């Protein structure tokens, strides 16, 4: 609201300022005279003033209201810098500012609280005067009840306020109570110690609930977010409270004891008829006991105050921790509350005991007072009658004289009469007295009843509330456990369901996947087959091509091989022919060559497929094969020998073959001389057929290496000469044949070899 107003004001101020400025500028522009400058300056000055005022106001308000400051910082850029400059950094948590913040954050609740506190304060003030004790007693428990109920909203400030409230309440509740309650000397240290152990165990219970937490800060925010801090605070306050309570209880017990002691002593002192010294010691003891009692009472009171303070602090802490709504701390809070309640109960009990004891002591004191008065009066009377007799009349029976006795008896009679008269008077007035006393008693009883009732009610309420909370906590736990089981069951059902669904899904997906897989596989297979087929085709093509090439190559190679084979054959043939020639050459001077069989065989072997060569090879004469042929030289040499023989038998022929003819031919041979060698003519005439001429021709031919011609010429010989040279002629013919065949073969081999050479 304030902010909005301020913003509106600022905005309007700005707008106005702007408008104003515009107007003024316009005006200044309009009035372009001396007044314009002053007007403009005035306008400027006012504008500046407004702006600075706005900013200053904003800063001040931000200083006072941090929320406003936060809002301004958020909405207006660079304002945080400005505000930081002006005011310092934004305030964080601390004790008092927290309170302020609390106040600022929850203004409505604060207003309420303030109203409540004012009400209570007023109630307190009205209850202060002791006269309307009932009304005081009423608002105090009601106040207390309110305070109990108003535990929910968390606030340290509230706690402080409450502390003061409760303190004052307790103070006011204390004094009227003991006046009307009866004495009840009861307490024992064992009870107190039992309560103390209870509290300590409760504290230890609370302390044994650890919750790890890092933060150690006692601030509001930190406490709110950490159950361990809560528990720690609870424990601390519980401990302090318990201590204080224990102290109070102890003090109260002590006071109680002192009171009872004093009362007993008083009673004793009243009733006992001891000798004077003992009596004086008794009275001294009594005085000491009284002093004790007073001191212990004061101590007890102080301790009680402290305990109440501590209890209130604990209550505040509990309230704050409850208000944080940290679920983990709830049992702690519950336990702390129970402890608090118990402590309060114990404290109240003890206090009531003390009060009763006090009342009793009062009664006893009154009684003792009365008795003392009576005694004193009697004593005075006795002493007035018999001044020389001592105060203690009980033990003086033997020492009194008869006069004294008579006086005493008379006095006693007189006293009895007086008392009878008083008694009668009393009897008469007894009803009235009794009524008055009853009234008083009633009032007192009522008061004490009310007190007791209120305290009991309080306690019961507290107990009921605690019980409720406990039950609530239990129920919550139970419900949570049940919920957890249900959830678990649900989760189990869910998991089962999910499992089933997953199974179904799995199957579906599997089927799908398998289908997809199979289709893909099929596709892949077809593709693969296609590819492989393609590959195969390609391969086949390649193979065919390669095969064709190979074939071509093979053919080429074959042809080459054939050519080579032919060449080899030719070579072989040539070689064999060479061998043949060599074999032919092996003819010695007089011996024929080696048998040409092997060579001819070789030749024949090397030309199996060649008809020509084989024909030639088979054309070799048998004799040459078996026996070999003579060389030309040997033939030549033989011919020379034969020539003479042929000359000697030149005349012998078929018809002339007597011995006489032999003689004559010898004679002719001896007497006829022809040329040793004569070149044969190209054509033979008849006269050349003379043996001697033929022989010379043949010899010439032989000398010139023409065996053939020689053989031809020799072939012309007739008669015995022919018979004589027949061998030589066959030999020559053989040689010639062989040589011819060999030369033919060689020529053929050469030709074949030449033919087999490849054209590059």
């Amino acid at each position, binding site marked *: 609201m304030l902010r909005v107003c301020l913003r509106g004001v600022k905005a309007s101020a700005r707008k106005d300022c702007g408008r104003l400025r515009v107007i003024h500028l316009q005006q200044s522009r309009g009035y372009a005279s001396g007044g314009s400058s002053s007007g403009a300056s005035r306008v400027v000055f006012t504008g500046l003033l407004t702006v600075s005022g706005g900013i200053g106001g904003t800063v001040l308000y931000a200083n006072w209201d941090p929320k406003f400051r936060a809002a301004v910082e958020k909405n207006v850029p660079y304002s945080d810098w400005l505000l930081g400059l002006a005011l310092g950094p934004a305030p964080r948590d601390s004790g008092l500012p927290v309170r302020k913040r609390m106040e600022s954050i929850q203004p409505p609740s604060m207003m309420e609280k303030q109203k409540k506190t004012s009400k209570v304060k007023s109630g307190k003030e009205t209850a202060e005067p002791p006269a309307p004790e009932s009304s005081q007693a009423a608002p105090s428990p009601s106040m207390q009840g309110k305070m109990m109920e108003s535990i929910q909203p968390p606030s340290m400030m509230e706690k402080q306020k409450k502390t003061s409230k409760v303190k004052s309440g307790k103070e006011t509740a204390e004094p009227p109570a003991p006046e009307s309650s009866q004495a009840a000397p009861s307490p024992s240290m064992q009870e107190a110690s039992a309560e103390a152990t209870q509290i300590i165990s409760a504290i230890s219970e609370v302390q044994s609930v650890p919750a790890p937490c890092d933060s150690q800060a006692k601030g509001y925010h930190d406490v709110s977010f950490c159950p361990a801090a809560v528990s720690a605070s609870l424990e601390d306050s519980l401990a302090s409270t318990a201590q204080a309570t224990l102290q109070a209880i102890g003090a109260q017990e002590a006071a109680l004891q002192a009171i009872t002691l004093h009362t007993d002593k008083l009673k004793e002192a009243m009733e006992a008829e001891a000798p004077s010294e003992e009596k004086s010691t008794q009275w001294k003891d009594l005085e000491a006991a009284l002093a004790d009692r007073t001191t212990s009472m004061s101590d007890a009171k102080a301790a009680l105050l402290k305990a109440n303070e501590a209890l209130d602090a604990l209550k505040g802490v509990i309230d704050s921790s409850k208000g944080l709504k940290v679920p983990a701390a709830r049992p702690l809070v519950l336990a702390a509350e129970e402890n608090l309640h118990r402590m309060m109960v114990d404290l109240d009990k003890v206090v009531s005991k003390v009060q009763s004891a006090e009342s009793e002591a009062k009664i006893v004191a009154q009684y003792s007072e009365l008795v003392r008065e009576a005694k004193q009066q009697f004593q005075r009377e006795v002493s007035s009658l018999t001044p020389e007799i001592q105060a203690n009349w009980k033990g003086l029976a033997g020492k009194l004289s008869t006069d004294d006795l008579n006086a005493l008896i008379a006095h006693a009679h007189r006293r009895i009469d007086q008392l009878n008269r008083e008694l009668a008077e009393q009897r008469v007035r007894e009803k009235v007295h009794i009524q008055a006393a009853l009234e008083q008693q009633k009032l007192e009883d009522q008061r004490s009843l009310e007190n007791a009732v209120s305290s009991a009610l309080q306690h019961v309420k507290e107990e009921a509330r605690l019980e409720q909370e406990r039950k609530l906590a239990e129920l919550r736990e139970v419900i949570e456990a049940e919920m957890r089981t249900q959830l678990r069951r649900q989760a189990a059902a869910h998991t089962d369901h999910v499992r089933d669904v997953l199974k179904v899904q799995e199957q579906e997906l599997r089927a799908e996947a398998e289908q997809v897989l199979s289709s893909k596989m099929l596709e892949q297979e077809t593709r693969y087959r296609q590819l492989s087929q393609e590959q195969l085709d390609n391969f086949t093509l390649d193979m065919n091509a390669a095969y064709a090439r190979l074939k071509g190559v093979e053919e080429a190679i074959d042809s080459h091989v054939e050519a080579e084979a032919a060449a080899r054959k030719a070579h072989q043939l040539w070689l064999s022919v060479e061998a043949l020639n060599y074999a032919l050459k092996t003819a010695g001077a007089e011996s024929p060559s080696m048998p040409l069989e092997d060579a001819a065989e070789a030749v024949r072997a090397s030309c199996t497929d060649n008809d020509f060569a084989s024909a030639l090879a088979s054309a070799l004469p048998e004799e040459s094969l078996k026996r070999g042929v003579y060389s030309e030289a040997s033939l030549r040499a033989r011919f020379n020998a034969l020539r003479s*023989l042929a000359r000697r*038998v030149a005349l012998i022929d078929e018809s002339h073959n007597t*011995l006489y003819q*032999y003689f004559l031919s010898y004679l002719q041979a001896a007497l006829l001389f022809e040329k040793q060698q004569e070149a044969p003519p190209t054509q033979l005439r008849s006269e050349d057929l003379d043996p001697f001429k033929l022989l010379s021709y043949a010899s010439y031919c032989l000398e010139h290496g023409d065996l053939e011609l020689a053989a031809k010429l020799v072939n012309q010989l007739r008669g015995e000469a022919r*018979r004589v*040279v027949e061998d030589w002629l066959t030999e020559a013919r053989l040689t010639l044949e062989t040589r011819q065949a060999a030369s033919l073969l060689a020529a053929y081999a050469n030709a074949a070899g030449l033919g087999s050479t490849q054209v590059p």
Partner: protein
Amino acid sequence: MAAEYGRKWDRCLADTAVKTVTGIGVGIVFSVLFFKRRTWPVSFGSGLGLGMGYSNCQHDFRSPYLIHGGMVKVSTTWKTCNFF
């Protein structure tokens, strides 16, 4: 052939000599036995031997030229049949 010729001559001469000597011998024997030691059987025998030898020798030298023929009767009737 020449060797044959030589051999022939060797044989011939050897044969002749033998025959001659044999003839002589026989002649001597005959002469001694029957012809009262006349010389004519010896010369006869030697001549005989020589002649035999000579004839053998000649026959030996002639042997290649000797023709051994036989007589074959030819009937004329068949000839006339052949003319048809």
